[in-house]
């Protein structure tokens, strides 16, 4: 690409291809996965009553912060979303917007039976499942799950990231493969009656 005495404009396609090759082999992928696994910061999006357990799980008694995980307020600086229980139809749009704002590589944990398949609100007219809204990596059953279960889900997610190379895989591929089963964002936010631009410069 470079030769002595001449200067060429960088061929971007070539550069991206080479960067991806570097990201696919050698020590770099495992370093990316290691770094991501120990900096899982969940955004605080409390959709329902499971959020109380989140408070306990990151409190001094159960202390999930020892896994390198810190609840944060802004979706722009987080890479994990914990759906804390029931998601109503109106809230589904907010969940999706929050998820779209997070930078890659990002992960999602669905917490509580409500987030699995409705739970207490099975057959209700006003809920949707979080897996219809965002791609979910880990499910935690329970109503509400114990804080230990939340801690375990963080550990399981770390294991998944490091063993399957999820974080570096996404960086290398540049896109996610598991988006096909979720509701299109136009349908999800159509009740707002306006065009919602959910694309951000990060996604």
């Amino acid at each position, binding site marked *: 690409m470079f030769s002595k005495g001449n200067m060429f404009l960088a061929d971007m396609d070539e550069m991206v291809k080479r960067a991806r090759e570097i990201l696919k082999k050698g020590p770099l992928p495992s370093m990316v996965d290691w770094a991501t696994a120990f900096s899982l910061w969940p955004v605080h999006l409390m959709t329902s009553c499971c959020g109380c357990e989140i408070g306990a799980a990151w409190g001094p008694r159960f202390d999930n912060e020892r896994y390198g995980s810190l609840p944060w307020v802004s979706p722009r600086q987080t890479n994990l979303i914990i759906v804390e229980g029931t998601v109503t*139809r*109106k809230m*589904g749009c907010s969940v999706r917007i929050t998820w779209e704002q997070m930078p890659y590589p990002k992960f999602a944990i669905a917490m509580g039976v409500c987030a699995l398949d409705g739970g207490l609100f099975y057959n209700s*007219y*006003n809920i949707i499942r979080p897996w219809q809204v965002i791609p979910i990596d880990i499910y935690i059953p329970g109503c509400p799950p114990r804080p230990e279960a939340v801690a375990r889900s963080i550990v399981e997610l770390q294991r998944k990231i490091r063993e399957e190379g999820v974080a570096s895989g996404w960086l290398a591929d540049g896109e996610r493969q598991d988006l096909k*089963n979720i509701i299109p964002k136009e349908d999800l936010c159509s009740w707002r009656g306006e065009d919602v631009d959910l694309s951000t410069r990060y996604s």
Partner: protein
Amino acid sequence: MSTSAQGIVERLRSILGLTPEAPVEQLKGYVEVSVDPASLRDAAAKLKAAGFDHVKSVTAVDYPDKKQIKVIYHASSMLDESLSGYVVGLATSVDRDNPTVPSLSGIWVSAEFQEREMYEFFGVNFEGHPDLRPLLLTPDLAAQRPLRKDFKVVEEDDYLKSTYEEYTSTKRWV
């Protein structure tokens, strides 16, 4: 001023100008007064002037057989100690097919959001409400009036499905 149950009934009769035979329901700490939709605003203004300074809840009951919807305002008092032990239900019955009630959000501010809820769940129109939009539901769902008795909930299947397609086919999308 007497604070016994009988006392509050007497007081309400004098506040609202009701005759002794007027329908006054009595539960423990709860008095329900039924008025016409036309005189609802007057009655609310009189109650407010007499010391009932906030609305605890606004609710509605659907009577499909009588073809009526009953809207109830639960008013109580924060400031007057002799009234704060009681909740007064100011009830009015309207036609089920076209329920129109004058909005009391101008008199009791705390009624504003709850009237929006009654609007989306029962389809009750509140005349003179400053901002009558669905509060908790999406507009397509609010159009179906989900808390009326004749709303049919779509039942989901109880059994696990073997394939993802079969499973999602029983789940409703937005």
